[in-house]
């Protein structure tokens, strides 16, 4: 039976690895954040459950809100050319559109923020990276929600 070993088969010792031996083995190939007996630590909250549920429910509501928003702004009644200061002022004169936009702002920011939070949890490998990315994310979400809410409620059509 013809069995031949390719030249690559012979394990060559390079200068960097020549010192490894049974007494001095190379470091093992570790997976990121290996499980230990004490992890994961139990938190006993329902935060992740509510987060998961919020993503589904807000997603359904956002489909209606965003498609409605896009239709009004970009398709119906002349399309995007009509959008201007006067158009926005006219819509925000009605509390219905104020609350539509407010709901869209809050749901979109929290939905997107929570989605990015799970992505950071999934992809960031160092605990420090996670903390910093999430700090930046939460700051940006809080700032955008606060600024947007402020503008919707304090909007003055006679600002000029």
């Amino acid at each position, binding site marked *: *039976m*013809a*069995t*031949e*070993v*390719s030249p*690559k*088969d012979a*394990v060559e*010792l*390079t200068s*960097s*690895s020549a010192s*490894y*031996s*049974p007494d001095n*083995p*190379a*470091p*093992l*190939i*570790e*997976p*990121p*954040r*290996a*499980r*230990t*007996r004490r*992890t*994961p630590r*139990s*938190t*006993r909250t*329902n*935060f*992740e*459950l509510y*987060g*998961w*549920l919020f993503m589904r429910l807000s997603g359904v509501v956002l489909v209606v809100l965003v498609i409605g928003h896009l239709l009004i702004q970009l398709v119906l009644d002349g399309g995007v050319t009509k959008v201007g200061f006067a158009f926005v002022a006219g819509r925000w004169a009605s509390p219905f559109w104020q609350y539509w936009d407010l709901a869209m702002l809050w749901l979109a920011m929290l939905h997107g923020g929570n989605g990015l939070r*799970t992505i950071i*949890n*999934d*992809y960031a*490998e160092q605990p420090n990276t996670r903390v910093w990315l999430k700090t930046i994310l939460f700051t940006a979400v809080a700032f955008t929600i606060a600024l947007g809410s402020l503008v919707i409620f304090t909007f003055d059509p006679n600002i000029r």
Partner: protein
Amino acid sequence: MSTPTLDKHSSALDAAEVTGTHLIAITLRVRRFNPEVSAEAEWVDYQIQVDPKERVLDALHKVKWEIDGSLTFRRSCAHGVCGSDAMRINGKNRLACKTLIKDVSPEKPITVEAIKGMTVLKDLVVDMDPFFQAYRDVMPFLITTGNEPTRERLQSAADRERFDDTTKCILCAACTSSCPVFWNDGQYFGPAAIVNAHRFIFDSRDEGGEQRLEILNDKDGVWRCRTTFNCTDACPRGIEVTKAIQEVKRALITRRF
């Protein structure tokens, strides 16, 4: 009266004998790692002659027994029951003892590497401790209260059917080590632990379902599942793993609301 059939081959047997010893040349490309030699893992090619109807495990045996005895891998029963030879073959998690050479495009090099997401100890052997720790954490045993019954705990066929799929698990880790969430964060319980929790959560005789749901409700529990279905594709027993995880999620939701 009866015709002697001893020395007369059936046509099927003849056909089997003609093709029976048909060997083909394959390249087995194994990702080898030996911490006593080098800190780097490397791909090593082995050219061997095998019967395409044999399994990848037979090819590995051929290499280990005839070419390089230092090739290290786990296998015990070699018939898909013990679940010790899960490995990544051509980029997919499979059991080497259930994968035929002819099914993994033998005209190209067949790549074999250790399952991902766990510490590689040597060649195809990984440290399974974190995997079994996650398994232990979901308490995979019958939990009951009250006095021991004096006879068998009876269960209807329908109640047994409820968790039948998840009883098939052989703990080979093919699902958990195919999960991208587990690759990046070993704190996630992983599909196998959830499957084995499912097996008891939905068992009508068991009373520890609430505790297990509480464990899996945590931030590294079922909510980290992204339903990529890698686990369902990887399972050599055909368990609908993602479905089981979704059923645990649903149980948590309906328990709460």
